[in-house]
């Protein structure tokens, strides 16, 4: 079964789903480093003003195997926001300033 779309009220974020809903932290990290600052900022600027509402919505949804597809996608967008927030709020560029190569940090255990 393929579930499409986001929960009601978040349709304006739909254009970001194809690129920013990704299956793992490393996939999100690689997306961050493959993106321009303009792309990252556009995503941040769309997400940041809605984040309170996104979290209010997601905080009513138990985090378990039964997470519905629409909420899975909304959470996927939020997880990518978590990845790129430091690009905007700390570094003003995609990568950590004078940072170590992130590919040299292997995520050997991913959060459930």
């Amino acid at each position, binding site marked *: 079964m393929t579930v499409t779309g986001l929960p009601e009220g978040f349709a304006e974020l739909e254009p970001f789903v194809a690129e920013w809903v990704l299956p793992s*932290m490393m996939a999100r990290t690689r997306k961050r480093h493959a993106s321009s600052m303009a792309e990252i900022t556009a995503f941040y600027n769309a997400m940041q003003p809605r984040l309170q509402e996104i979290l209010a919505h*997601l905080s009513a*949804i138990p*985090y378990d195997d039964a997470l519905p597809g629409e909420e899975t996608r909304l959470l996927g967008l939020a997880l990518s926001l978590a990845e790129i*927030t430091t690009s905007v709020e700390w570094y003003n560029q995609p990568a950590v300033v*004078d940072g170590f190569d992130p590919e040299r940090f292997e995520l050997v*255990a991913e959060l459930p």
Partner: protein
Amino acid sequence: MTSKSPVTNLTQRFPEMGTGPIDVGPYRDPEFFEREKEAIFRRAWMMAGRTSQIPNPGDFFVRDVPTFDISLIFVRGPDGQIRGFHNACRHRGNHVCLGKSGNCRAFTCKFHGWTYNLEGELAGVPDEASFFDLNKSELNLIPVSTDIWEGFIFFNLDTNPDQSLQQHLGGIGDALSGYPFGDGVSRFQFSGLIKANWKSVMDSFCEIYHVPSLHKYSIAETLAGPDNPFGHLLDIRTYGPHRTATISGNKDYRPKPVQGIAYAFAQGDAITGGQGVRSDLPPGVNPTKSENWGLDVNILFPNLLPVIGPGMYFTHQMWPLAPDRTVWEMTGFLAPARTAADRFVQEYFMIELRDAVLEDMNTVERAQSAINAGIINEFHYQDHEVALRYHYHVINKALNEFENRAAAE
């Protein structure tokens, strides 16, 4: 006691250390490195993982020990007890467990099919009749000394350790016991090969003098506020070879937009009570009971740093490979996400931490190059780098004590 102002003259609490420059020999010398392996790592209590990783009988995980290229298995038996074994078949030495973690009823070597039960006993040998005088009861998996403190599983490669784990931890074990480590059952772990001495990697997490400069885009303002611009320590406490460096926070810090929302959602949900400081924490956590507490870097000899801050704890662990090569592991322990919003907050915390550490690692590799080349031959530690100076002295003391004991035997 509530202290707001950081303390001074920390180094002078340890007059035997002096205040002079530190020789970098121990950070590059191959002979010194071999002495460390023999005197320290071959006989130290080191952390393998947590009991919550293997809650049920048959649950196991494999712990690689890069320093000795050894693989260990930790498994919960049918009796509920956790045991550690070398991951090596008694027939010809192949690994008996190829997975990293899971649940099983027995360990079977894929080479010839020798099978061991969860208590490590050799249970089955194919074509046993063709062997000569095989005494199966003497060919169990080789046990590794294993003990548990506060849910952390420790091992010791010495089959007959000089000290129990409890004796080894001593005062710091008491000071931290009772902290809700057990709440952190959701784990993440990063690992990396760092081209630097293990002590340099470790030391980079044990002082805050670098924070206002190196971390100026990220965590400088959260740790070093206007009343403590150089990140002076709130305290250093030592317990034999172990120590706790207590780091101040800037409670007037005003978070950035997404950061602030993430922090606000974490409030009250996290392990130590979010942004506030829980009153029921053990005496070794935030030992000065400061309102400006940032976090405690606990340094457990030889290679484990449990870092405890408001709302979370994580560990750094260093595995020496060569005088200038270290396998570093950083493991976060979080309360399970109850809602999908919790999961976002966890990710945000993990990414902040990862990015801050990405800022650290180039410095240790560049410094190692200058040390290896003989360009830099001494370190100059200031007062608030006292945990590093202490480290140097603890290592030298451990080597001398071990070698003097060995010479006397």
